[in-house]
């Protein structure tokens, strides 16, 4: 087991290296760099540009050097925790992101919990009452949840939340707490705002999870071992929870791999519509303005989380499923 984990971690290194090359190439692909788009923006606004200052900045950040050197510089910096400098914000990348990161994590985390809390009972109900009116109704609602785009739902909810509850939802907190230090009032303000993005972002995920849980559970419910458990006199609810539900959880654990990166990047469009102070909109902006260190660091961070997420879900699968742990895949 330990050897397996170590081996997997060793494989992560070349994977990440390859991803970093890809990220760098993609960021370099569009013609020009941040300074060029910056100059043209200034010119468009009719302001004078201090070419000397820009040339100096270019030199300082190595933009006159060949791409290979810049790549090495970038990757080397990341290894020691220096993620570079955001030209857009004129701040080190870590300072720019840091503030928003924990808000993003909070929103995503609450969303995931919300998804699970709603999806599990519904999925179990749908599977055990297959083809009942309840199943059809929930399936219908779920399909609507999957089909309606998040941003549209966001607009609708925003409108009604304002009219019915008088909650003005742009953002995650009231204006006066922005940038303020954490306090009890700020926390309350966040709590009163967070449910709307959580519902909006979580709807599609919840509906999707209900569908998958229902399908997986239906496969398991007719298996022989379920009859065996019932023939022992076990309570039907205990049978359901102990055997088929546990068996149908593998897909759920495999999902962890994709949950981690979506915690950081998830729901960019919704975040823009609701003007949430999360990292999603920032990533999009950084890509638009060719703020290469910010964008690159973001993408690398996402890649890192994906790789770690896959590792975590593989290890969790092995711990929870003895067939993977002991079978080695060679036995029937």
């Amino acid at each position: 087991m330990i050897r397996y984990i170590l081996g997997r971690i060793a494989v992560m290194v070349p994977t990440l290296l390859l991803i970093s090359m890809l990220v760098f190439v993609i960021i370099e692909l569009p013609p020009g760099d941040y300074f060029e788009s910056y100059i043209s923006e200034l010119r468009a606004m009719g302001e004078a540009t201090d070419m000397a200052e820009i040339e100096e900045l270019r030199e300082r950040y190595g933009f006159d050097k060949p791409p290979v050197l810049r790549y090495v510089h970038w990757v080397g910096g990341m290894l020691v925790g220096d993620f570079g400098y955001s030209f857009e914000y004129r701040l080190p990348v870590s300072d720019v992101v840091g503030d928003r990161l924990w808000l993003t994590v909070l929103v995503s985390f609450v969303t995931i919990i919300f998804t699970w809390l709603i999806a599990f009972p519904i999925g179990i109900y749908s599977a055990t009452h297959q083809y009942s009116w309840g199943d059809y109704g929930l399936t219908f609602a779920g399909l609507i949840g999957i089909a309606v785009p998040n941003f549209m739902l966001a607009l609708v909810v925003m409108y009604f939340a304002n009219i019915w509850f008088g909650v003005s939802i742009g953002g995650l907190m009231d204006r006066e707490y922005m940038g303020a230090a954490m306090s009890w009032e700020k926390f309350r303000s966040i709590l009163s705002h967070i449910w709307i993005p959580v519902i909006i972002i979580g709807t599609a995920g919840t509906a999707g999870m209900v569908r998958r849980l229902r399908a997986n559970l239906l496969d398991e419910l007719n298996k022989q071992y379920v009859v065996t458990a019932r023939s022992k006199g076990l309570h039907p609810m205990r049978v359901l929870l102990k055997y088929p539900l546990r068996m149908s959880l593998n897909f759920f654990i495999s999902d962890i791999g994709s949950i981690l990166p979506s915690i950081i990047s998830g729901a960019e469009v919704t975040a823009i519509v609701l003007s949430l102070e999360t990292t999603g909109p920032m990533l999009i902006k950084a890509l638009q303005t060719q703020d290469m260190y910010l964008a690159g660091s973001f993408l690398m961070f996402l890649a890192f989380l994906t790789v770690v997420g896959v590792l975590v879900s593989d290890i969790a699968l092995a711990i929870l499923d003895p067939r993977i742990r002991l079978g080695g895949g060679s036995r029937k």
Partner: protein
Amino acid sequence: MDSNGIGRPRDLLRIEGLHVSFALMGARITAVRGASLRVLPGKVTALVGESGSGKSVISLAAMGLQAPSARVSGKILFDDPLSDKAPIDILSLPHDGQKIRSIRGGRMGMIFQEPMTSFSPLHTIGDQISETLRIHTGLTGAEMRERCEDMLSRVGFHNPRKVYDMYSFELSGGMRQRAMIAMALVCGPALLIADEPTTALDVTIQAQILKLLKDLQLQMDMAVLLVTHDLGVVANIADEVVVIYQGEIMEAGPVETIFHRPAHPYLKGLMAAIPHFGMQRGDRLKPLREIEVNQESLLSKKYQARTGPDIILSVRDLSKTFAIRKDNWQMPGKAKEKARPAVDGVSFDIRRGECLGLVGESGCGKTTVSKILMRAIEPDTGSVLFDDGRGPIDVLKAKGAELQALRTRMQMVFQDPLSSLSPRMTIGEILREPLDIHDYGDVAKRKMAIKALIRAIGLDEASLKRYPHSFSGGQRQRIGIARALALGPSMIICDEPVSALDVSVQAQILNLLKDLQKDLGLTYLFISHNLSVVDYMADRVAVMWAGRIVEIAPREIIMTAPVHPYTRALLDAVPFPDLERPLNFETAGKTSAVSRESWARAFRDDDDGGDGMAPADLGGGHFVLARRNADVRELSS
């Protein structure tokens, strides 16, 4: 138990006028029509019928486990010997309620056909067995563990402590069925319902499980309702027999009456449809439902006057060892299993027009041999020479046109007729595909050939437009045979062609194969674990064990005068549907790995440096694998 004073034991389970029907696609399918039967306490009652006869539905209903969509009427009275109260009607109890749950597992246990899927692979054996105790007794954890381990050792585990913490997939099929029995019996129920408990098992394992069931039944003074289609099993352990056909009880009574004086035509038909030992060469099975076949249409030129060498297939020294996958999870230093050859120096010849039977328990390498012959697996060493009179072909080295030619001359019939036919192709397309691949004639000629094929297996031309799922298992297997015949092969490898089929259609397929062989002059390699089927089909029989052919001889000699101890054990383990030939449970109840220790030295090659094993000629085409220096006369004594 004899408390009602009439002098006759009370029925433990009494089913009266049971009707079960299911809603299916808007219609109602009746699975059981007015079935009545009884199970006496402390006796084995066998419920016999072919698949779809409703026998499993009855066994499930007896525990209230029928599907929610089932509509049930009638009475199922369970008279618990431990309670003085009047019998309980299982059907009147609330569905999955407290009362029925206290009977399930506590007073009635159940085991199933598939030991593979009856356990949850995510929980340890011990967890699943002690769960029954947790539900029905108030024992502490340590006491439960003790009871479980005691039960596990009673069902034949030598190391119950270790098995308790193992997972089901770490056990073999037979061992899993033992664990299953332990789980059903750990609370000491008055009734055990066993639904085809040995059907999925090898014949030697089957004998062990039957012995175990019989022993435990006597020790625990428990009644067994045994659901099976195998009359051989019935003859060996049942006290009473109930015969069911299409949801109706045909005949019921003590086992002696049923076997000696079967009254109902269905039962007589069932007995005539099952191959059994001691059939004469010319004897023919009588299927329950005869099929009309028309082979004349296939008797074209290509099958006539084919002459050639006497030996059509010559196999020499085949060996194959599968590399064991390196296990990432294993801690370093843990002993690794040494790779054992799956096929180990196998040599045999098949003569033209004969049927060579290849028998052995599962995992003995017989399927690997067939796959090597079809070039699906590359052997490590060995040679295979095929010659049907159109020039010899080196099977293992053939390439290009030669390989194409080989494919037309050697074909295969598979075990599972459903998964070996593509569900997305019509029968016509399935049969035409080989002709297309090999560019046989023009379109009109292909059409003619397909029609001839479908008639030869007794289906009508309309079935060419249908898809495999709309046929029954036996019909699908006939289609599989037609596909194998499409290119006019001279040899067919049949890999367990009837083991996935119901007894009632087995006879159809076996007779069809026999007729085709006679009329078309085919040669068969017939692989099966069912000795009586091989006995019916084969001219010569090769017995395989642990990757080697341990004995090969004409059918009569193998069946009547086997020499190798493994062959003898295999034959001893076959249950006969005949009360006069009961199984000898003492010899049959051993695994080959254990009984191997008691084999005569001449048949073992493990210890001190002998000079290896070689087939010893006993005369008359009878060879047995023995030590090189062993005395031939000594062997056959």
